[in-house]
């Protein structure tokens, strides 16, 4: 099976993001692999272990070097990594375009069997790249999945909707995104990290990707601080909520 996993790095979840002069200041941020992408890499490696002869390629679109990110994916078990260097990659469409162009070059005859992405990146939380990429590759998009079982011919997937869970069957090729619950990503030890260093990382420059479809106008830090009114008893709390109209005596 030919599997491609699209990954990215995001600020550590505890990082505080500063805004200076209307621009994001990420100078003091430490970067980690996007958690949803970890599920995607883990699932790809499990499929590789299930189907001998499979290859897992991880790809990232990045403005600057992202070696640590790629090394981590390689340590988890990916076979090779591709670093796509592109300017200004905040726009989902630009990211999806860079990935699509590179995938078409790498797989000129038929698309890879499976393209895995994280459900969304925790920084922009747009969740648009996987669907856009499927559209640009002209293959099906199955959405975020919480369970995946593969045979040589098809995938059996589960995904959540507002009412419950859907069970679906999908033929290759397909783009799938990883939702929390899909798996528990493996931890990597010294041995895996050392082995990863021997695996190939290609760097490809993609300067001429699509023009941005969203123009950033500015960034503004948000204060989340509210002033909390404390109640001493459940009765007092109920009184406040009823009086301020947050609960109506008529219910709902």
């Amino acid at each position: 099976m030919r599997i491609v996993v699209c990954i990215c790095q995001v600020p550590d979840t505890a990082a505080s993001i500063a805004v200076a002069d209307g621009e994001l200041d990420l100078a003091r941020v430490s970067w980690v692999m996007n958690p949803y992408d970890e599920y995607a890499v883990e699932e790809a490696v499990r499929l590789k272990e299930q189907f001998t002869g499979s290859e897992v390629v991880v790809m990232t679109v990045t403005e600057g070097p992202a070696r640590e990110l790629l090394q981590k994916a390689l340590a988890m078990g990916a076979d090779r990594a591709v670093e796509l260097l592109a300017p200004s990659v905040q726009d989902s469409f630009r990211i999806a375009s860079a990935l699509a162009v590179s995938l078409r070059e790498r797989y000129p005859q038929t698309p890879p069997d499976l393209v895995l992405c994280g459900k969304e990146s925790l920084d922009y939380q747009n969740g648009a790249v996987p669907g856009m990429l499927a559209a640009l590759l002209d293959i099906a998009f199955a959405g975020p999945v919480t369970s995946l079982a593969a045979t040589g011919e098809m995938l059996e997937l589960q995904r959540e909707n507002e009412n419950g869970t859907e069970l679906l069957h999908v033929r290759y090729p397909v783009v799938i995104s990883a939702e929390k619950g899909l798996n528990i990503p493996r931890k990597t030890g010294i041995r895996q990290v050392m082995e990863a260093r021997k695996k190939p990382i290609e760097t490809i420059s993609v300067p001429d990707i699509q023009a941005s479809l969203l123009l950033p106008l500015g960034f503004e830090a948000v204060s989340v601080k509210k002033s909390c009114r404390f109640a001493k008893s459940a009765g007092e709390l109920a009184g406040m909520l009823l009086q301020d109209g947050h609960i109506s005596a008529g219910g709902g």
Partner: protein
Amino acid sequence: MMTGMAEHYLVFLELRNGAIAKSSLDVWNRFQKFSSGRDSRVSAFAAGHAAEGAFDCLQGNGTVYHTDGTHFRTGCDSVVCAMIETLSGAERVTGIAFASTAMGRRLAAFLAGRLRAAFFSGCGGSGGVEKVCSRFIHSGTVIASYAAAADMTIFLQGRELPQPEFSSAEKPAIEAFDATPYVVGGIHSLLVHAVSQSCQKRDVAEASVVVAGGRGMGTREAFGMLEELAALLDGSVGASRAAVDEGWRPHSYQIGQTGKRIAPDLYIACGISGALQHLAGIRSARTVVAVNSDPDAPIFGAADYGIVGEVREVIPDLIGILRDVMAKK
């Protein structure tokens, strides 16, 4: 962007069990309200089985294109996307709007790729309908503003936008859309085989009242009182990551950075300390109530109302009092 051309919005109406989803109806009303008195139009597209009178709830002008195919009850997004693509081209649509549901999110992203559209997701304020979008990024700590730089804009809207109030004496025309050319027998690459119902009546992301529990609940069983309170307030139950990791509730209940982002009118956090990752999921909640035994819990900094106390004492008391008040009305 072409100027001087009237905007034409196409709203995707999601059908659930034959009825229009409430979240889709909100999107329709929002665009109708925006367009009334302006030189812009609103149409809609609905795919799937519609019960008798399913479209009666729609007010305003425009046309609802409906295709009642049994062929894509299987959930074949690509067929639906192809139909929307054709319709947008033929009707010179300038913006396509979806409610932020599981299906809406899939269709919106795929179509944005197909149509090279500006993708406006989760935009608050007036950004719901205009060509400028302001949305939270970085766990709700930063608001980013964007302008659309494409002829087509795709809107993905959830409860982060205020509930629209729109009424009109007019009714849209309902027109049948022929799905036959889009359905090629037997080559669906994706088929939905089974759907299992969640025990929850309404997803936390769509609920107007959410009652959630965290580690402070102590046990899985303690969530029973949250179910009770939620039922009383016609709300849904959620959970913090800690409670999900404990196995007290499934992942679909999780609120926060790696869970759902919710935007209820009222959010009641019970035994939730309020880590940054949790607060990221409740940034759009309008009123927040926190119940926690630790007076220094960060959740109180993000709350409008608070009570320092044991959830297992406070919540049953609250249920009792509210039940009395509601019985008296």
